[in-house]
């Protein structure tokens, strides 16, 4: 009988939505919520012995949370840790990936499930990630994929693309049957014969970005200006970092038609901020945006601007900021964005 611990967020254990997002790590016996269906699919040879949960904000935002979650997981002595499915939920996906990575690093088998576009997909370390659809209404197929993957892992088999494997697959050391030089000669002959694909090292993978449809009626739309140029009020009240930013901030533009030098400053460590500080509009073009508003080219300029420092930002954080900015702007009704980059 294989022992499984299931990790879920506050929503899927039924503790609430955003209001419960700060709830701390907790554990309860047996399967909960979607875990029940997962247990059914897994059958008699597998038992979900415990469900560990945490609020998304706590898991993705408080540095000690993951270790606490893994400690709770370990108490249940699992053979495998299953995290998610997180669908496209960014914070939940990050939490699932990090829990799986930490469990794996602690010597436990682990697997996470989420949509391939989830920013958590590259943070699962040595733990495999299998695909789910975009939203919870696709829980059924997601659990089908996940339960099949769980069975395979417990049977000691490696997952492949056919099992829904997504995300970074670790590069594992192997001894080939021939030397690198001999393999290079084979690869050269393959290339000469027309094979454009063959390689032992895949090129760096960048996300496919599906462009959004265009704004239809700009004259009535709210447009937001956002920036990675680290422009903040002169005293940097939010303590935005100059490099390796771990956060983003928002500042109000309400009632302002311009940004006066001396009241704003760029704290970006990646370029000389002399010009930006002499005229903050060079980072945040408020004057031109207000002109466009007056001329009727846009309906409204969004009342706030969102800002971070794009200097050595980890890909994981940058992805997370993007997810959060998108959520924030949608929530506030902005229909398009202008992002100034340095």
């Amino acid at each position, binding site marked *: 009988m294989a022992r499984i611990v299931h990790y879920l967020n506050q929503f899927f254990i039924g503790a609430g939505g955003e209001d419960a997002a700060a709830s701390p790590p907790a554990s309860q016996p047996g399967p909960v919520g979607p875990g029940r269906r997962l247990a059914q699919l897994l059958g008699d040879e597998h038992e979900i012995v415990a469900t560990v949960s945490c609020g998304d904000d706590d898991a993705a935002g408080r540095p000690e949370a993951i270790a606490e979650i893994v400690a709770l997981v370990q108490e249940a002595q699992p053979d495998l840790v299953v995290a998610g499915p997180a669908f496209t939920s960014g914070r939940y996906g990050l939490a699932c990936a990090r829990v799986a990575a930490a469990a794996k*690093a602690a010597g436990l088998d682990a697997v996470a499930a989420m949509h391939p576009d989830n920013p958590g997909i*590259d943070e699962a*370390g*040595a733990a495999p990630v299998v695909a789910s659809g975009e939203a919870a209404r696709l829980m059924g197929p997601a659990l089908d994929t996940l339960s099949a993957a769980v069975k395979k892992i417990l049977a000691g088999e*490696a*997952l*492949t*693309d056919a*099992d829904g*494997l997504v995300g*970074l*697959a*670790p*590069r*594992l*050391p*192997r*001894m*080939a*049957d*021939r*030397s*690198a*030089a*001999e*393999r*290079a*000669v084979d*690869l*050269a*002959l393959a*290339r*000469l014969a027309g094979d*454009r*694909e*063959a*390689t*032992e*090292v895949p*090129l*760096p993978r960048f996300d496919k970005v599906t462009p959004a449809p265009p704004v239809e009626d700009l004259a009535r739309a709210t447009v937001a200006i956002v920036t990675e140029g680290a422009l903040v009020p002169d005293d940097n009240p939010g303590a935005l970092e100059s490099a390796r930013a771990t956060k983003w901030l928002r500042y109000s533009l309400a009632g302002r038609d311009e940004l006066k030098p001396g009241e704003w400053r760029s704290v970006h460590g990646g370029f000389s901020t002399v010009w930006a500080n002499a005229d903050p509009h060079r980072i945040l073009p408020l004057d031109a945006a207000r002109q466009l508003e007056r001329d009727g080219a846009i309906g409204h300029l969004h009342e706030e601007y969102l800002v971070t420092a794009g200097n050595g930002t980890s890909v994981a954080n940058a992805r997370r900021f993007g997810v959060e900015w998108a959520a924030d702007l949608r929530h506030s009704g902005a229909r398009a964005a202008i992002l100034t980059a340095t």
Partner: protein
Amino acid sequence: MRAVHRVQSVGMGEATTWRDGALTVSAEEAQALVSAPCLADVRVSWASPGDSVRIVKVLDVVEPRTKGPGGAGVFPGWIDGAPADGPTHVLRTAAVVVAGYLPRAQEAVIDMSGPAAELSPFGGTHNLVIEFTPGPGADWADVDDALRRGSLALAARLAEAALDAPPDSEESLADPGPVDGLPRIGAVTNLQTQGLFKDVFVRGESFNGRAPALIDPAEIDDGAVVSGQYGHPSLRNPTWVHQNHPVANALRARHGRDLAFAGVVLAPEPVSASEKARISAEAARLCADAGFDAVILTKEGGGNADADVALKMDALEDMGIAAIGLFAEMAGPDGTGPPIVVAPERATAMISTGNYDTRLDLPEMERALGGEELALLGVPATSAMQLPTAVILASLSPLGWGRLTCAQDG
């Protein structure tokens, strides 16, 4: 033509002799060959495959080769041997290994047994290890030079012992050239030329600042390329590896069958981006002018050196010449980091020679040569220890010697 003598056993004795696969070395003679005013003391000992021995602080490794007495025909620019024709005699599976402290040398390890043994070419060779003590106040550059001259002279002397013995096999070396109807595949060998303790020599002179140039691969076989490069242990090419140039040999082996071995180009690895771009463009043009249809590119060093391969690969692809690059990966201990530091943009054919960061659990050894302590970890050199593959000499062999690689399951 190589006259290959297989070494079956080794030992010390009164005189340096070769008989029926047994190589005996006179310690006195060996020490005398390596001695120099800047060296207070030189000691030689054997470490053979399977021995419970760890060699630390490895500097260069040389394969015993000569065409005649006195180092005739080998290591031009270092040994004053007379030029010679005829076969090059090789003592295969023997090596002269210099081991000891030099400043700026990154500590390199060879284990003669245990899991790391098969990762280095020299875990499988009978190694005559030269240990040394510099003279008081000796200049390190002089020490390095003396060790180089001494080890090359000793390597030639060992091979000399087998000159009159019938070889175990003879290997003919196909000369590069076109063969009707077969694709012409050449090699570009990048040499790291960054000055003292990080330099590579061609015919006795640093290749720093040189233009990319074609070289007769037979010259490389006879020691025209000598390494004074003590940087990244896993990513450097000791002299032995150049003598056994894996890519040239792999191409030669199929010359006339499914390809024509088209030649070897040597290129330096400059340290500025603009110089890298310039040298890479020149090297690509040289390959095009020489009629190569495809090129296999190798490097020496870490991420910086990736750029030299990547730039040439893109330049060649832009000219319609297929380019294959050998790269080591730096994917982190769990293999999930971005593997290649500087990848090509348009060329895509890459061979992986393994992951720099993979952890190895190495056993305790009975004996250590080259030093008493592994400075990297501050432990006795004989201790059991965990090391990244990065520290094992030539383990990620960028010249393509090794079978180590990376793969993704599924």
